[in-house]
């Protein structure tokens, strides 16, 4: 029984290291896209992807330091990401973010 627990712990540690490395590579590629991307819409989509990768990184961090207190943070990152992306999209589309009358 103890051997099985040790094996599971090692498996989880190896998996977390692989996942962190993968997310780091993805973040670097997205950062390249956000810096170089030819149009502003490319940068907006790259920032959206960076935020989603940060959600995954926060979830992995919650597994590394064994805690459940980070779950609110993950949800918060997702909500703020959604709001920010909508604001950028409205600015690119219309030039105003909160308009006076939509009729």
């Amino acid at each position: 029984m103890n051997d099985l627990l040790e094996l599971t712990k090692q498996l989880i540690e190896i998996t977390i290291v692989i996942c962190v490395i993968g997310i780091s590579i993805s973040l670097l590629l997205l950062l390249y896209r956000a810096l170089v991307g030819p149009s502003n819409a490319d940068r907006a989509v790259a920032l959206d992807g960076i935020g989603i990768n940060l959600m995954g990184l926060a979830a992995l961090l919650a597994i590394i330091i064994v805690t459940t207190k980070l779950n609110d943070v993950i949800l918060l990152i997702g909500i703020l990401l959604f709001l920010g992306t909508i604001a950028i999209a409205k600015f690119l589309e219309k030039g105003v973010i909160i308009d006076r009358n939509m009729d």
Partner: protein
Amino acid sequence: MYKPNDLILRTTTSLIAFILLGFAIYLLLAGHNSPGGGFVGGLMTASAFVLMYMSYGIETVKKILPINFRTLIPIGLLIAVVTGVGSFAFNEPFLSHTFGYFTFPLFGEIELATAMLFDIGVYVTVLGVTMTIILTIANDQ
């Protein structure tokens, strides 16, 4: 000027704004034992309102939410000060808090602390300040 079609944005907003408001209330009530509290709860409520303002425009939301957010700031500060001053009535120092156990019909026994009232004051103040800043900037003619 062409008329934009915002059907998808408006439908998602009417669903997500309720989730955001529920999450804000959860953060406000859970602040005693877990992460959260008045500040984050106020910011989440403000972000739900900002989402509604972004997808429906100022004039429409003013009909739905007939609140002048500037008046929320003194109300919240007043709540916070009154919870501090209220401890004088029991011969205790300023801002001393207490708690007690109460039994409710649906929830069972709950621990209620007077720090919750102070947190509600912080919540109202943060909501008023954030919405005042955002709407003042957005209101240029």
